[in-house]
């Protein structure tokens, strides 16, 4: 099957500053990919290039197999089969109905059909009662829904969303996510969205891409991205806070022992002995106890609490066990265990909870 949209080695620069570096990706109908990445990583630029609002500095874009990188007429034709919802959507100075009808009018759709389609889509986004309201007077969440309706009404084959919930309150966020989930479940549209909210990426999309500094460093399932990041940069971005450099000192089947700064940690890996590695442990995978016998994990270390940082219902603790480990406990259990800076503590984690990658 030909992908509905495909980018091959897209590069772009503004004022000689590289924004995108040889980005390649492709989406089939029904795919949903969430691009996550820090601010300024090139997410918006990538969407604008793919929606054909701008021409890339180099690289190719294919829409249903057609090269639409340059030719003006083909670009308009392809653009009319895609839609982009901007991060801060602007609505036109007209009522909600006419705003939503815009795309259809540009395509010279018959007036009666316009009416029917707009009404149906307003219902989908739960805005039917607003049809005659001045769109400029709507709240942020309502405007976002109008913008999504305006994009959906043309039945795009590809839907791009740039941080669709960045400026919304929690209630509006879940409304927008519901709408997106419905569109994705229909399987007719390829959805590519950007977000800096990793959890949202996981809630809405089946695949996640990590875009950092203009490069896609990893594309995979949420599980892959969060638990098996391919590089230190990805790991840091997706919240793996314990990234420890070490060397594999022995190996038996899959079970290896990594020496980290004198401390020996047991891990599961297929990397070979004497390999230099990064050992990655998510803070949530470390359990803490006041006594040793509580844990069945292979790795149990005694340490001293260096720092306690309360974060509402959770508390972060930094424990020095020869290696410095960051973990979280619920604030309730922190007070039950009477955790204090300087007090002794056992940190434990399973060999399977550790992700190991090559270093250097």
């Amino acid at each position: 099957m030909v992908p509905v949209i495909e980018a091959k080695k897209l590069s772009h620069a503004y004022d000689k500053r590289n924004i995108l570096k040889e980005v390649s990706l492709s989406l089939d109908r029904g795919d949903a990919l969430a691009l996550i990445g820090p601010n300024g990583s090139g997410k918006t630029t990538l969407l604008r290039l793919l929606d054909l609002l701008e021409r890339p500095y180099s690289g190719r874009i294919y829409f249903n197999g057609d090269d639409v990188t340059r030719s003006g007429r083909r670009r308009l034709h392809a653009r009319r089969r895609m839609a982009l919802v901007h991060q801060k959507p602007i609505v036109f100075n007209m009522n909600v109905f006419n705003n939503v009808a815009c795309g259809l009018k540009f395509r010279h759709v018959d007036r009666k059909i316009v009416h029917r389609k707009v009404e149906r889509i307003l219902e989908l986004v739960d805005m039917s009662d607003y049809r005659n309201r001045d769109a400029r007077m709507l709240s942020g969440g309502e405007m976002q829904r109008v913008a999504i309706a305006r994009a959906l009404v043309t039945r795009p084959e590809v839907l791009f969303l740039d941080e669709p919930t960045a400026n919304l309150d929690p209630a509006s966020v879940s409304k927008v996510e519901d709408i997106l989930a419905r569109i994705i479940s229909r399987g007719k549209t390829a959805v590519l969205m950007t977000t800096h909210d990793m959890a949202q990426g996981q809630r809405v999309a089946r695949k996640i891409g990590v875009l950092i500094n203009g490069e896609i460093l990893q594309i995979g399932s949420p599980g892959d991205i969060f638990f098996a990041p391919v590089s230190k940069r990805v790991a840091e971005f997706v919240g793996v806070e314990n990234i420890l450099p070490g060397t594999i000192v022995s190996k038996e089947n899959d079970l290896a022992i990594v020496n980290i700064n004198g401390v020996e940690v047991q891990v599961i890996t297929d990397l070979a002995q004497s390999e230099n590695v990064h050992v990655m442990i998510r803070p949530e995978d470390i359990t803490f106890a006041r006594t040793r016998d509580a844990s069945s994990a292979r790795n149990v270390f005694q340490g001293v609490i260096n720092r306690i940082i309360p974060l509402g219902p959770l508390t972060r603790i930094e424990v020095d066990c020869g290696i410095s480990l960051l973990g979280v406990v619920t604030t309730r259990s922190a007070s039950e265990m009477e955790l204090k800076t300087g007090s002794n503590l056992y940190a434990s984690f399973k060999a399977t909870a550790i992700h190991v990658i090559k270093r250097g």
Partner: protein
Amino acid sequence: MDDLWGAFVQAIHLIVSRDPDVMDIAWRSLWIAAASTAICVVVCLPLGSLIHFNRFRGKHLLLSLLQTLFSMPTVVVGLFVYIMVSHSGPLGMLNLVFTPTAMVIGQTILIIPMMLGLVISAFSGVDKAVMETATSLGANRLQAYTVNIKEAKFPMMTAVAMGFGRAISEVGASMIIGGNIVGYTMTLTTGINRYIQMGDLEQAFALGVILMFMALLINIAIYLLQKRRQYVWFPS
């Protein structure tokens, strides 16, 4: 003072009784200015779109030039058009000198810079994202320009009103190009000039009152339009 008051009363009488000469002059002024304004709109909307939405060398220079031409002396335009259409001029064979058509040409040239400047400034008051949003919704260039024009409709209408105001109140160009021929090219402004020279203050006053009344209407329109939307006077 009594003379003045008498002239004023007479003038009102001429207007109220719809004196044929006065009405004829007023009507001619109105349609010549309206025709010039209409031509300007047809020229300035697309041209203004092209200038505003495209980057090119010398754009800033062009914008400053336009601003300078806002206050182009009417007699200079009159002289220029006169030279063009006079019998020995390059357009002499069209026999346009001392015709209303030539006056329309003159007024059009006179108000184009101002209207173009105001149209561009109206565009610059529109959020840049409008263009991009329209494009991403599938608009072609023309459709995207149209969306922008609609977004700026109040400042656009102000531009039209101000253009019309300058056209109908201008005297120098009409005088030189039209020749102030009674019943053919005499307008409100050139008429006032003529009647004063002839000592017919009532007639001059009547035309003046009509002109003031028109100016008042235009200003009310501009005021109402500007109240509807704040906009940038000119891009910096």
